[in-house]
């Protein structure tokens, strides 16, 4: 999951992401066409609907996307199930997966809290320079990941002017991942908070609820779907991240080496089957995360439809 560049429009990058765990309020993903059947070729766009157009598009996507992933999967099972399992559970491989998942979980939780808090401050608070702060949120999406790495190293690396050295430590890893995943929760919670009905909060206050009670019992439940979707996307992104951790992470096996670095290393020492197997494991985690998010979003949507 690597959306290096997106943003600019609150939450839209998220809507471009696969699982369509839409923050409530975002435009729903393209629904299946309900256009009436028209004779093909009558208008300009009939052409792509015709077998030839679909064929070309399908071929393009197959060659560009499906075949590489197919080659990857087949290679990972070249030595059978046993070989795959052995490659994934090799101690260093397993350690890299564990580091990756632990770091991603930590980062996701940090995002869930800080992202919600930042979104809150950006929507409900008012202070000079708020627009600049708001623009700052998109920067991590717009910056190339390697630049993110260099940027963090300049403050927290060996030449740190404040004497903080997070280079090649797990906190450094978390820092890098927190940087690149910053926009996910903020941009998915922000629109929901903007759309949120202030009257509901006033109603809660008029019934005697304190600010904290109102937040916990009235505001938070409405934000939860957006927080979960943003957190899940941040997690999925953190799982596969490479560029931002490559310099600050340190690549120390069993300590700070993440799965993507392990994979890269296996390619360098010409162990493609190992690389492919861990890649497939990584893909499986990412897909599972996105599938859960999609299921969760679908559930919310269904509930709304049922009750509408």
């Amino acid at each position, binding site marked *: 999951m690597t959306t290096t560049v997106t943003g600019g429009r609150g939450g839209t990058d998220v809507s471009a992401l696969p699982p369509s765990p839409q923050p409530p309020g975002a435009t729903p993903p393209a629904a299946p066409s309900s256009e009436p059947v028209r004779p093909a070729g009558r208008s300009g766009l009939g052409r792509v609907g015709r077998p030839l157009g679909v064929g070309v598009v399908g071929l393009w996507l197959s060659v560009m996307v499906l075949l590489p992933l197919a080659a990857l999967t087949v290679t990972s099972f070249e030595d059978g199930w046993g070989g795959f399992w052995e490659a994934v559970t090799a101690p260093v491989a397993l350690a890299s997966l564990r580091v990756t998942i632990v770091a991603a979980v930590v980062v996701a939780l940090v995002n869930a809290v800080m992202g919600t808090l930042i979104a809150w401050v950006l929507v409900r608070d008012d202070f000079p320079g708020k627009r600049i702060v708001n623009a700052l949120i998109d920067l991590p999406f717009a910056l190339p990941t390697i630049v993110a790495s260099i940027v963090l190293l300049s403050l927290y690396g060996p030449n740190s002017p404040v004497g903080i050295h997070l280079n090649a430590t797990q906190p450094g890893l978390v820092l890098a991942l927190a940087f690149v995943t910053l926009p996910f929760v903020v941009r998915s919670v922000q629109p929901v908070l903007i759309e949120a009905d202030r*009257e*509901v909060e006033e*109603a809660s*206050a*008029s019934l*005697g*609820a304190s600010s904290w009670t109102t937040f916990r*019992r009235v505001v938070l439940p409405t934000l939860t779907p957006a927080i979960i979707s943003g957190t899940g996307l941040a997690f999925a992104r953190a799982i596969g991240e490479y560029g931002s951790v490559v310099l600050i992470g340190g690549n120390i096996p069993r300590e700070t080496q993440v799965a993507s670095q392990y994979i890269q290393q296996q390619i360098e020492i010409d162990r493609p089957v190992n690389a492919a197997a861990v890649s497939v494991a990584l893909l499986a985690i990412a897909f599972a995360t996105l599938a859960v998010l999609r299921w969760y979003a679908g559930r919310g949507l269904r509930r709304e439809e049922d009750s509408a």
Partner: protein
Amino acid sequence: MITVTGARKSYGDFTALDDVSLEIPAGTLTALLGPSGSGKSTLLRAIAGLEGLDGGRVVIGGRDVTGVPPQKRGIGFVFQHYAAFKHMTVRDNVAFGLTIRKRPKAEIARKVDDLLEIVGLDGFQHRYPAQLSGGQRQRMALARALAVDPEVLLLDEPFGALDAKVRADLRQWLRRLHDEVHVTTVLVTHDQEEALDVADRIAVLNKGRIEQVGDPVALYDRPANDFVMSFLGSVARLGGQLVRPHDIALHRTRERALQLDARVGGSPGVIEAVVERVVRLGFEVRVDLRADTGERFAAQLTRAEADALALQAGDTVFAHTVQAVNPAEAEPALAI
């Protein structure tokens, strides 16, 4: 009893409340009536504590609540757009105020069931707000506000988002409810018909000031000024004066008109006019007229009156008023 004294509130250049003082007697249903931007909602929200005042005081039931947050004012507030807690069932919505007060479960359950029955939502306990109609949601919001036994019930355009039929039903229902529970109620509305229909007392607001306070009949019959007159009920301008259309009488002959007009003081006299259009609105008939001065106005007749005159477009008639109308000369009605 709610007492507001010298309330002032501005938003930048806009003055929402300009030294407003108002007394709302205990147990009444008072309507704050005015056009949008008149300050009526701001006044209500200031009573609730949802809006801070720049100056002035609010006293509820003898307690000065001016600086008190809404949580501690003992109010129930109903919003135009229901402000339903969407993620909670109807039961949980109504129980909310009691739950956060940590009342015993049994008491909450009993009270919620009672209230749901009163508002006609028993059987809907486990639905979510999205599964209710607008009118049902608003009744749920009312039950929710009443659950905490508020000292005063404040309603901000509660029926504004509903369609006309439901609005009329709910209005009747609110009136009956008020007659049952007798809680001091303040209702904000821009709909004069609604205010006349439901309220014991009406305060008319305009541009952040109170124009007149009184019971509906007094306000209608003895408006303190042109604004109140034209805001409550329809008006026509006849000979430079504001007149209720149903207070205009039409005659075929000038003599008859003069004869009858002589009995009414302060009228603009007899005006010759040409009938432009006759519109039958059910029982009433509206006659669009053009005076010989070029001024256009409408008169409202009963069907029998209109039939007796057998009016047709192009006919010439003689109009005069049957009531003294000049608000300035009318007896002042409880003006503030």
